[in-house]
């Protein structure tokens, strides 16, 4: 797998020493994370490792207790989701937040509709929708059907496409392939690669090792609210990553894999 992308050199988002406490719980402790333009960074970790907290901190839902954030070379403080969006950090949360009764165009442009003589400019919105979806090679049969009638992967596509309308520099995807079928997962992974080609920094949260190995350039592992290693996907195996996630080389996943291989060979 070659992951040398020409633009993957300048860091667009950088977190240094970020900590976050919830009462007695240290959710994040001294987290470091760098994302370059044109790079997919997978954020992995077990349940409760702090992935969601970190994403919400970047997205401006939580403000960190300590630590610094640098965006596009400038130190920034993000105190609200709107501010994060304004900076150029788009987040697609797991529940997608689509309006089922509106069509694809309505959802894509929700809250930032185009006007034509003060009325909605449906024609221009539809044209731009197609343009955007084509750029993403998205497989949406019609943009004039209610979002409810789309498959899970297509809904994910609409949600991701919507996040791109604000011209972000970093896109965070929270478990975009959870609850998707095989073909739909592949579609979303293609979409992630398309985002990388556009020079965006992508933070991908996933539990699925196969997805992570397939699409990510680097993998940042969180364990119990701390950094537990950053791996270059081209020089590592999913074994190493699982070991970092669980914190041990001997873990249920590797034991199970070892047992299966020994059974097959016997």
């Amino acid at each position, binding site marked *: 797998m070659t992951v040398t992308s020409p633009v993957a050199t300048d860091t667009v988002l950088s977190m240094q020493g970020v900590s976050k406490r919830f009462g007695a719980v240290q959710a994040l402790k001294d987290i470091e994370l760098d994302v370059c333009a044109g790079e997919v960074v997978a954020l992995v970790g077990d349940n409760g490792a702090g992935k969601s907290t970190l994403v919400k901190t970047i997205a401006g839902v939580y403000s960190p207790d300590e630590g610094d954030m640098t965006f596009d070379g400038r130190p920034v403080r993000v105190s609200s*989701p*709107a501010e994060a969006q304004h900076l150029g950090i788009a987040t697609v949360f797991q*529940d997608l*937040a*689509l*309006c*089922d*009764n*509106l069509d694809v165009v*309505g959802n894509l442009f*929700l*809250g*930032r*509709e185009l*006007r034509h003589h*003060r*009325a*909605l400019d*449906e*024609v*221009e919105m*539809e*044209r731009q929708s*197609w*343009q955007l979806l*084509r*750029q993403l*090679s998205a*497989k*949406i*049969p*019609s*943009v*004039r*059907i*209610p979002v*409810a*009638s*789309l498959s899970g992967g297509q809904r994910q596509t609409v949600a991701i496409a919507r996040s791109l309308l604000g011209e972000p520099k970093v896109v965070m995807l929270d478990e975009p392939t959870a609850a998707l079928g095989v073909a739909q997962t592949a579609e979303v992974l293609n979409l992630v690669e398309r985002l990388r080609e556009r020079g965006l920094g992508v933070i991908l949260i996933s539990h699925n090792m196969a997805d992570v190995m397939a699409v990510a350039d680097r993998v940042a592992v969180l364990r119990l609210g701390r950094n537990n290693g950053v791996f270059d996907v081209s020089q590592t195996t999913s074994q190493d990553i699982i070991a970092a996630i669980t914190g041990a080389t001997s873990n249920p996943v590797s034991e199970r894999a070892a047992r299966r291989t020994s059974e097959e060979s016997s």
Partner: protein
Amino acid sequence: MSTTPSTPEQPGGPAGIEEMPAAVPADLQDERLIASRGVRGAVSVFTSRLRSGDLGSLPVVVGLIIIWGVFQSLNSEFLSARNLVNLALQSAAVGTIAIGIVLVLLLGEIDLSIGSVSGLAAAIMGVTLTSRHWPLSAAVIAAILTGTVIGLAYGVIFTRFGVPSFVITLAGLLGILGLQLYVLGKEGSLNIAFTSALVEFAQQQFLAPAVAYGLVVLTAVAYLVSRLRSRARRAAAGLSTTPAWMLAVHVVALALVLAVAVLVLNQDRGVPYMFVLFLVLVVLMDLAIRRTGWGRSVMAVGGNVEAARRAGINVRFIYLSVFALCSTFAALGGILAAGRLAAVNQSSGGGDTNLNAIAAAVIGGTSLFGGRGSAYSALLGIIVIQSISSGLSLLNLDSSIRFMVTGAVLLLAVTIDSLSRRSRVAHGRA
């Protein structure tokens, strides 16, 4: 699955009228789209939509035809010009209230106090007009603003304290009825002079035949022009366009329906001013819902509040504006009803006003579950309800039967709504 390589911005070009443009429009390139062209295609699209439960206003139109057929066979007076003019006059006031109900239903909320608000507005107008001798315009404006203020209060309570709209407006139903009785005072009943412009407007003013036909032509032309303009813009943007024959069918159908209605009503007194006002309000609200950012926000909030909020829509403002509009329409409806009766009394806005208005919106096809519906459901629904009421009174059946029949029709309408909703979910059209 490979899509045919194609540039996204092919100018489709208005290449002839009936023939297909040389390049496939941007929105028809996906090979999974079931191609449907020509008359047969249009019919098959329509039937498949119906099968999947996307009924739109079809049940109410079919229901109306059945109701009219039944009553006409029982009493040949029913479809007479005279009775239809009365029907139009009776529909306008409650229909206006129903427009407001459509709006709150689109948000998935409810307003139970519209009857009381319409009664209070009528009382305020009556008292300021007769006892205080205000000019009519001032009295009407005061009454309408009262409605607006009440709606704003509902909106504030709803958005600040999160009290369910059902409870807020149930309290309003009682409280505002009390306020109405208080405003009316001891007499309890006020007559508005027959010479008052309001009463004349609501009872005796009809469009001259030439004006009525002129309006029909004007409406059809305006519709045609707006369709042609959007068609040209779509073609310029490389999107698919409605075939010319279908556009012609739509325009001719609209003109025909309006012309026949005017023709029939002109046999008697003509098209009432009040009904024209109601129609104009329906069309304006329909445009506001479908064509403005505000309307899109209303639909979004009705579909998924959280999504709307995250998209940066000012959800509070949407709730406030809709509750305020609903009560404003209720107040206006109350004034029209007072004008039609030439009187205001303690039972103004009481009785079945409330439920007729809500039933009209639901029977017309606006979903109780929010996010689906159109302003036209107020028009269709109120005509159904008034037809039942007028038909039964022509048969000399008293109000006990009327309540039961209206109740049954309402239940049927809500059942169809629930069933079609389930079917829409199953067929992916929710």
